[in-house]
């Protein structure tokens, strides 16, 4: 279906790109900032820095005390958070529209003047919190380190996507207050961000407010670009076989994919969906329903902007089933798709699913603001939110097969397996085929 969300755009004198989409359906407004700094920008020795700022940005700034960012917005009815990814860092809040000025003032104060409040005490405290986040999200759950292991295999050492956003705790420990200040001065400024405002406000009022609160902030020197991550498909099989105290045996494989914003990536993503999405995907039909060798299967593409993306396929073996059978079946289906292609009906199904996902993503002011920031920052064109479905719908069965033939192959993959260790202790097995 054609989408027609209104969009207005201005760039302030200091380089801040502002996008406004007025929507009066509900009396709320969403504010969303994407900074062009993610883990892919981190130089060696500074891994985890982009994500560390996601924490430090809530510890106060020149005119805001520690904790006040949350308390002021919560009292105004705000819902707020931040997230860090390979390609960017994102700060956002939604709140009743009378709080727009407050949200913009808070965002501007930390964009311009975070360092006034960034003390060693704050840094030490948030280092501890990040370590607990890593323990909770990676270390204290079965298979929690699978992505860390996969990206390390799938990309060469030093590649911008070879480490996860959580980074290395050793790097965080070694960081001095000056290192942290320098990182902020390098990446945090109006000309390295997109500000999106969506919701119950007129376009004119939104631009006026953006200028009122951000207009005085000085531009920063153009930040160094992230290293070019352009790289072709994997041409070998790279393995990491882990014996651990896991509940069930699991195999997960990663393929390099084309960069985001290309029809090839859309096609590759749809290929993975035909295999792994929903109940009707080929892998669920065969491995879970028909052969019953797997408890569950999953997978999909993860679009990235820096010269390459990646996608994964994962299967958890049924109890008592040799994991090798699951791996073999996954690879057989991978090759079958590359050699035999997909049907028009399969394509229509995954396109219909992608359309629903997209409409759901845009169904809240916050979700729309996030996608507008995303497409403005990474592609320079927020209107892509209105044409996204048409792009996905335009992909043909031939394009899906061509993308799969080139990128999603048994002979070009990184693979991590977890097998139950009979004597209950973790150990590492071999690292190559």
């Amino acid at each position, binding site marked *: *279906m054609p989408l027609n969300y209104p969009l207005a755009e201005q760039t302030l004198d200091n380089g801040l790109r502002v996008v406004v989409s007025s929507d009066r359906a*509900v*009396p*709320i407004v969403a504010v969303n900032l994407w900074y062009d700094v993610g883990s892919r920008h981190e130089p060696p020795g500074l891994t985890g820095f982009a994500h560390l700022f996601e924490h430090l940005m809530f510890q106060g700034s*020149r*005119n805001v005390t520690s904790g006040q960012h*949350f*308390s*002021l917005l*919560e009292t105004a*009815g*705000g*819902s707020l958070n931040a997230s860090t990814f390979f390609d960017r860092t994102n700060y956002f809040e939604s*709140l*009743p*529209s*009378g*709080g727009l*000025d*407050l949200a913009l003032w808070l965002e501007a104060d930390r964009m311009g003047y975070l360092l006034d409040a960034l003390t060693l005490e704050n840094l*030490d*405290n*948030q*280092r*501890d*919190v990040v*370590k*607990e*986040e890593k323990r*909770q*999200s990676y270390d*204290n759950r*079965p298979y929690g380190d699978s992505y860390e292991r996969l990206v390390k295999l799938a990309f060469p050492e030093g590649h911008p996507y070879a480490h996860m956003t959580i980074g290395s705790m050793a790097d965080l420990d070694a960081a001095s207050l000056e290192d942290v200040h320098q990182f902020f001065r390098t990446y945090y400024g109006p000309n390295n961000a997109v500000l999106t405002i969506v919701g119950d406000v007129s376009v004119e009022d939104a631009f006026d407010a953006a200028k*009122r*609160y951000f207009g*005085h902030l000085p531009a920063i020197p153009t930040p160094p670009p992230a290293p070019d991550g352009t790289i072709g498909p994997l041409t070998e099989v790279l393995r990491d076989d882990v014996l651990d*105290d*896991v*509940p069930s045996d699991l195999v997960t494989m990663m393929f390099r994919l084309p960069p985001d914003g290309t029809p090839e990536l859309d096609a590759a993503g749809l290929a993975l969906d035909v295999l792994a999405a*929903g*109940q*009707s995907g080929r892998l*669920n039909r065969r491995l879970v*329903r028909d052969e019953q060798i797997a*408890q569950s299967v999953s997978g999909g593409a993860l679009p990235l902007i820096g010269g390459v993306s990646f996608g994964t396929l994962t299967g*958890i073996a*049924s*109890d008592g089933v040799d994991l090798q059978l699951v791996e073999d079946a996954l690879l057989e289906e991978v090759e079958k798709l590359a050699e035999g292609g997909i049907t028009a*009906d399969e394509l229509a*199904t995954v396109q*219909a*699913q992608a*359309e*629903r996902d997209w*409409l*759901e993503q845009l*169904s*809240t002011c916050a979700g729309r603001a996030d996608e507008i920031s995303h497409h403005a920052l990474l592609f320079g064109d927020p209107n892509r939110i209105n044409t996204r479905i048409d792009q996905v719908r335009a992909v043909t069965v031939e394009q899906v097969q061509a993308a799969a033939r080139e990128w999603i192959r048994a002979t070009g993959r990184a693979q991590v397996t977890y097998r139950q260790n009979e004597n*209950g202790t*973790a150990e590492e097995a071999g690292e190559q085929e």
Partner: protein
Amino acid sequence: MSQILTTPPAVGAPRPWKFPESTTTATRAGTPVHVFDRPGQYVATVRVTIAMPLFSEPRELEGVATIMSRTLDEGTELHSANDFAAALERHGAAYGVDVSSDALHVEISVPVSQLAPAVKLLAEAVTRPAFNVADVGRHVTIRLGEINQEKANAGYRAREAFAAHLFDASTRRSRPTAGTPDTIRPLTNVQVAEYYRNNIGPERAHILFAGDATGVDVAAIVDDAFGDWTSSAGPALEAPEPLYLPGDRLVLVDRPGSVQSQLVIGCAGPDRRDPTWGTAAVANHVVGGTITSRVDTVLREEKGYTYGTRSSFTAPRKGGTFTLGGSVRTEVTGAAITDALRILREARDGLTEQEVREAKDSLTLTAPLRYEQADSIVQQVGSNLANGVPVDFADTYMQRIAATTAAEATEAYRQWVGTNGLLVVVVGEAKDVRPQLADLGLGDPIELT
């Protein structure tokens, strides 16, 4: 034009907002249909909420309701499992089920343009399931594998141990909703089909729609799909009141290799019938409901023990709970529990006017955000109906919160939290954690592996 403001700008008064209202009709089979028309919500959600109190499960077959619910879409009288999934997904629909202690919820999300065929398929799963022997057997196997995953999950282990020690063994909620290996293994399609026949029918159901209904006769589409539904199952029986075990208690679950301790601390709480349901929510917000709450201000922001904790009052139809949960570093487990208990107990001395005002503002003013999306509306209303309160309860609840005074919030909190003791559950590396628990004043822990 641009100046540096050193104090926060004023916040303008919020525009009035009310929880969305529904239009209610009924199908020919008598099932109420509640339609929430939300212009601009191009993806609609349709939810069938069916009263299904889990005490109706035979003790030796607990989990039969879950297996029944999970196999509704695994083949119908008209489609095989694979064909059903293919047909539904071809319309861009996503399908899901949820089993709570009082109800079964079956739901689809679908672009409004595909509503009619998708609702037909939803009705097929709910009213004409096949329960083939192979499909049921497969879901029994999948459930057994899922139990292995749950055993490895610290958060799950903590919640399970909490329920087992908060409730008397005669209460269904002391045991897992989806059953245990002993009760799952014997299940076949015979018991599943029997449970369905005895418990699922149009008299126990509500059908909810939220989405952009412009130019769409939702009631007619739903009636066309669900109007012929017949069943011998009459109205659901009322579940008995739960029985709680009182007193301060400590439970330690050994999870070797843990690098954090997962905590759950809690006690009995109100349910929606109780006059403190709204006022207790305000108190919770102050004490542990947000990152700025009393607990996280100390445990996360001052001490860096945790990535974050959260507390809440939650309740099914009868008998609620208060819980504070989170993970903390192994070495500071004892210190974190000491701080948490102190903060929870000190809150009984009173919540300040400012704290309560800010909590009320946050809870009421965030409501338009929480219910912006179609799906969130039917989830809330479906849950409310399952829990025995009227379709407009969400609005009544907001009004109650807005009217809460500091004295009322404190009183609600004092009525529940710490009055009959607190149950503390720790899941972690027992040999490292055990010595840290000696000084909590909770006695020797009950140890589980």
